């Protein structure tokens, strides 16, 4: 299950941050997202380690914690997407697929003429679309 999803701008400013848990642990999840920014920076600035996946938008597993796995994605426009999940056996293809769909939702959201670039995404349509994508992520893993 995806517990948190974040969009972070090119100056590491939060653009969208949403957790999907019943429990009151939003702060903890946001902390995890915050920590992962350093990992992304490291990946991007020292590309030797990533080898053949050089310059790919999908950054793969950023780091595993005891309860969560954190995945990252960096667009051409230096916007970062961060995904926190509780599933411990996640297939890369599923995460890629998720980010691809999430990216198109994001692009549609920022193409809204009323969206101010660099400001938080407040669109309700975007939030609904994201929660649909998040829900379907669990399903595709089950199939």
């Amino acid at each position, binding site marked *: 299950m995806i517990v948190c999803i974040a969009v972070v701008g*090119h100056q590491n400013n939060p653009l969208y941050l949403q957790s999907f848990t019943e429990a009151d642990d939003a702060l903890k999840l946001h902390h995890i997202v915050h920590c992962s920014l350093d990992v992304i920076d490291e990946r991007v600035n020292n590309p030797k380690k990533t080898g053949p996946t*050089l310059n*790919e*938008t999908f950054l793969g597993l950023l780091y595993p914690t005891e309860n969560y796995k954190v995945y990252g994605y960096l667009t051409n*426009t*230096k916007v970062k997407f961060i995904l926190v999940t509780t599933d411990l056996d996640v297939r890369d293809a599923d995460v890629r697929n998720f980010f691809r769909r999430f990216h*198109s939702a994001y*692009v549609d959201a*920022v193409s809204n003429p009323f969206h101010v*670039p660099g400001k938080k995404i407040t669109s309700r349509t975007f939030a609904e679309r994201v929660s649909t994508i998040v829900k379907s992520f669990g399903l595709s893993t089950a199939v």
Partner: protein
Amino acid sequence: MVGREVSESCVDSMIIEMVSSYCDRFCSAKPELAARRIEAIGYQVGLQLSERYTMERPRFSDHLEAIKFICKDFWSELFKKQIDNLKTNHRGTFVLQDNRFRWLTRMSIDPSETNANTSDDPSVATTESKSAQSASMHLYFPCGIIRGALTNLGIPCAVSADMSNLPACSFVVRIKA
């Protein structure tokens, strides 16, 4: 993904109307302000388009790659053709030349003016520069688009346009260090 199409004449009319609104109504007293406003609209369009068109492609490793993207894929998406010629001095200046820029193909400068230009009448020179000036107002929008796209890709730059003989035109991109 199904390619979505836009009527070319509608886009043409809209740009012409936008330019004339800003030049003649909103900012008629200050042509520089009108130019800046039109450029700003282009900038936002460029930001949004670059976001969309760079989906599903690896990140660019250097400036040249990003400029090439603008010349090839970005231009093809906008105008169904690529930039015809790209020149660079390898010090951060790029010249993108389009031999038949779509938004200028319907534009012509009154031939009577150019004929009259042979005579050495000082008043003719001003009318000629006036029509050239109003044509150049239409280039602030594409300049803004290029600047917006490059800025969004992490390359702050200044873009100016030069049109010596219609409908060819060239865009000069200067990357800010």
